[in-house]
């Protein structure tokens, strides 16, 4: 019998009590039960985050000593910024000293470029598929669907060979170009655009808009939710991409956060405190983006599945 057991028993007792007091309206008791279950699960989901937050500020000598935080009288001794200081120290490499902020800039740059390029190309393709009738459209759509069935790893080895042969190793081109036009994104945009009435486009044409400015100034503002959702997904994917930079980038000064942070906990390194401090920082940009785009994200993500 310990604290956790007593706490759970109290919660259960409260449920029984509610049920017994209001036998005619069991709904109250069950609503209570529902929120208790949700809250417990939410607590379990948040626990590793809380642990991460605590561990990043703990001195690395006591990382394992306490589950979360050290007792308050030890705070002066055992809570400090040493992990962050270590993280921001200059690192010697083949290209001279590299600082941590360099990796942050690399990651931000790469993720932003990838997102913008993918959004642009995918939405253009999606618009063409949604609003034009042209020769070969059916074949193209079928080909796209079929190509989604093939897992990306099949192409890993030949694309790697190709990148080596055309001399794009160690450049960001190798990370941006291969996925610059996402088939998944084209389908998402097609689905969002297909419902827009054709009259709108005709009106634009009569007013003398070029086809490109119809796409840019008429259509794109109307599919803003989908654009938000797609941008978030793409940004997250690129920001957290590990395999790509790991395979294509060799120069230390060009690496991105996931690869660099992973170097702190490799087979020969063991600096978990520094890794956790870096991870805490690496979570911030996607978290901000998610907060801003939450609504668009949920509706964009689910509309794809519900409409099939």
């Amino acid at each position, binding site marked *: 019998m310990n604290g956790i057991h007593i706490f759970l028993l109290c919660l259960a007792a409260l449920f029984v009590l509610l049920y017994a007091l209001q036998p005619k309206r069991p709904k109250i008791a069950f609503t209570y039960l529902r929120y208790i279950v949700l809250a417990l699960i939410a607590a379990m989901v948040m626990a590793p985050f809380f642990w991460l937050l605590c561990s990043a500020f703990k001195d690395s000598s006591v990382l394992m000593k306490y589950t979360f935080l050290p007792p308050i009288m030890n705070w002066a001794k055992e809570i400090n910024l040493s992990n962050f200081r270590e993280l921001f120290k200059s690192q010697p490499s083949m290209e001279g000293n590299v600082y941590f902020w360099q990796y942050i800039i690399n990651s931000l740059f790469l993720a932003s470029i990838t997102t913008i390029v993918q959004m642009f190309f995918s939405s253009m393709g999606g618009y063409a598929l949604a609003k034009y009738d042209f020769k070969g459209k059916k074949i193209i759509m079928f080909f796209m669907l079929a190509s989604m069935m093939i897992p990306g790893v099949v192409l890993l080895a030949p694309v790697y060979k190709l990148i080596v042969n055309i001399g794009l190793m160690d450049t960001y081109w190798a990370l941006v170009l291969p996925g610059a036009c996402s088939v998944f994104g084209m389908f998402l945009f097609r689905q969002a655009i297909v419902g827009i009435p054709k009259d709108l486009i005709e009106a634009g044409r009569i007013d003398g808009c070029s086809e490109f400015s119809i796409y840019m100034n008429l259509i794109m503002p109307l599919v803003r939710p989908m654009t938000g959702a797609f941008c978030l997904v793409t940004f997250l994917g690129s920001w*957290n991409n590990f395999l790509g930079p790991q395979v294509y980038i060799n120069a230390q000064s060009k690496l991105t956060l996931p690869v660099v942070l992973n170097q702190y906990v490799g087979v020969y390194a063991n600096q978990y405190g520094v890794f956790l401090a870096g991870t805490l920082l690496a979570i911030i940009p996607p978290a901000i983006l998610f907060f801003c785009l939450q609504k668009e994200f949920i509706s964009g993500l689910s509309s794809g599945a519900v409409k099939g």
Partner: protein
Amino acid sequence: MKDLKYRAYVKRTPYLFLAPYFCLVCIFFIYPLISAFLLSFQQTNGPKSKAFVGLSNYSFVLTDPDFHKAVKNTAIYAVFSIFLQLPISLGLAMLLNTAKDKTKGFFRLIIFSPNLVGQIFVGVIFSVLFVPRYGLFNRFMQSLIYWGLENRWLENPTLVLPAVIITALWMYVGFNMIYFLAGLQSVDKSLVEAARIDGANPWQVFWNVTLPAIKPVATFVVVMSTIGSFQLFELPFSLLKGEFGPSSSGLFIVSYLYQMAFRAGDLGTGAAVGWILTLMIMIISLTQIKMSGTLEEGK
């Protein structure tokens, strides 16, 4: 005359809009696809030298005990992600579905949040949470059911797979829940009411009203998570510190491919593994779609 010219211009536009796709798909999809096909019949030593070896890459892979282990691990993981992860996601979605908008948004945000963290970060974080005696997970299990404080999750071959499954559960439950929540919007509330009035118990309502209504979404989620399971790589890779666990207990199909192609430098065998994986994914996901009978409605 002007009209004719204009029409030709409008006719040309879709191809221009699709031009980036055409270019990129030729260079980075069709060409590598053909070359992956050829590569799988070749033996390579690094990216430059090669020799034609016929089907021997395939026969090597198919008879390699490590590959069998990888397939077995991947299959077990896939089964758990469908029969453990998805029911929990659906359960959570149903618990949340009738909540007020604000509460719903709050819990949705929390339960989804692990998805914002990359697999590579999650893997390393959990490798610390699973440390014997001191890890958060071990301590939690100890205080809850007095078991598991000394468990060496990542060093004991029988516990590696459960550790991967638990980590994936934490990470993906919220993601699938979002889809189920969206699907539950399409359940006809008056139909549920009618069934209740007719005396159906909650279980019957679930099987006969809710489940058929969310079938398209459920099929989508099942197929997506099966495909995702078969491509699992970064999570176990980082959880096991770039290794594949004691006696390959944490080896998955894509880890095997990575090991072959990029650690051993044998791109040909890597390509062969890729094709075997493609075939497996195609057969399984087509079977799932067929079984659920939503092939026509679901496009």
